[in-house]
């Protein structure tokens, strides 16, 4: 199996999906084992879920923390997120074409995608198990408030929710609102407030009091 580093991008220009390499192998064996009753998909998800926050370094948290502290960096992130993220040394096969969508007092952003191959895991970490499910995708689009409520997120009345659909060409990073009471915090300390869910919009950043 050869892997052309530019291959993923080229695939992005086709209009259908691709399954390649290890992702294909894993899906193949897993589906056979589930079909034969050797594997309970629920139990498998549970094991993955236990560790889902542990994929790679949570690079996106650093990006968010930098943007909170440094207005010039925030501006570069708005203009060209891909390059601004690469500035911190974060590049990866999955993270190339990034766009940052900013939460504001008026707007809350959330991101959906049904394919883990669209998910910028080098920036965000491992996708949550439910993220790939068809019901999440369709409900996030049709009733985003209800989905957010299930995640324990209640937004102030009148706030607009924007739902973004990741594609192979464009992957999104939600820039959560900076929590109150964090003035003067170091980048490292701020990064601890940035959860994976806050970067896909199914959560908010932790409050200042939630970390020591």
């Amino acid at each position: 199996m050869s892997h052309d580093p530019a291959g993923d991008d080229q695939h992005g220009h086709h209009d259908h999906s691709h399954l390649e390499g290890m992702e294909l192998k894993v899906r193949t064996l897993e589906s056979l084992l589930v079909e034969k009753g050797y594997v309970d998909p629920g139990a498998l998800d549970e094991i993955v879920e236990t560790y889902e926050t542990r994929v790679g370094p949570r690079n996106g948290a650093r990006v968010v923390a930098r943007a909170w502290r440094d207005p010039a960096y925030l501006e570069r992130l708005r203009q060209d997120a891909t390059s601004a993220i690469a500035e911190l040394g974060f590049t990866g096969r999955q993270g190339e074409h990034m766009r940052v969508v900013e939460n504001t007092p008026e707007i809350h952003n959330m991101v959906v995608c049904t394919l883990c191959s669209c998910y910028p895991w080098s920036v965000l970490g491992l996708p949550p198990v439910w993220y790939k499910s068809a019901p999440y995708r369709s409900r996030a689009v049709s009733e985003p408030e209800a989905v957010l409520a299930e995640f324990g997120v209640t937004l102030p009345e009148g706030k607009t929710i924007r739902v973004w659909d990741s594609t192979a060409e464009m992957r999104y990073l939600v820039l959560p609102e900076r929590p109150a009471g964090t003035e003067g915090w170091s980048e490292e300390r701020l990064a601890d407030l940035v959860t994976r869910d806050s970067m896909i919009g199914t959560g908010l950043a932790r409050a200042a009091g939630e970390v020591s």
Partner: protein
Amino acid sequence: MTAIEALRAVPSIPRRDDAPIFAEPWEARAFALAVHLNERGLFSWAEWAGRFGANLRANTEAGECLTYYEVWWQTLEEFGEEKSLASSTERARRAAEWREAAARTPHGQPIELRRSGSAG
């Protein structure tokens, strides 16, 4: 054997604190599959650690052509074959089905196998 016990029994698993670190999502899936098949009693963890360790050494001697979790996966496929869980013939056929399913799925839609005989 819990995942934590499994980790301790295979000391070389890349980890931070008491949790494994994965470079890509499929690696987490591969890790979970081995832990789960062991929980279901299809092989003992000593058996897994023994074979995986041998494969890892062979890979090192061969110049580390495979990554850590590629060797992990090689071990899973070997066990699948030897314990008659899924043969290489079955895997080849299923992989072709998944490729076809991906090719007929517009980007952004979930890729699903179309099973013959199932309604809809």
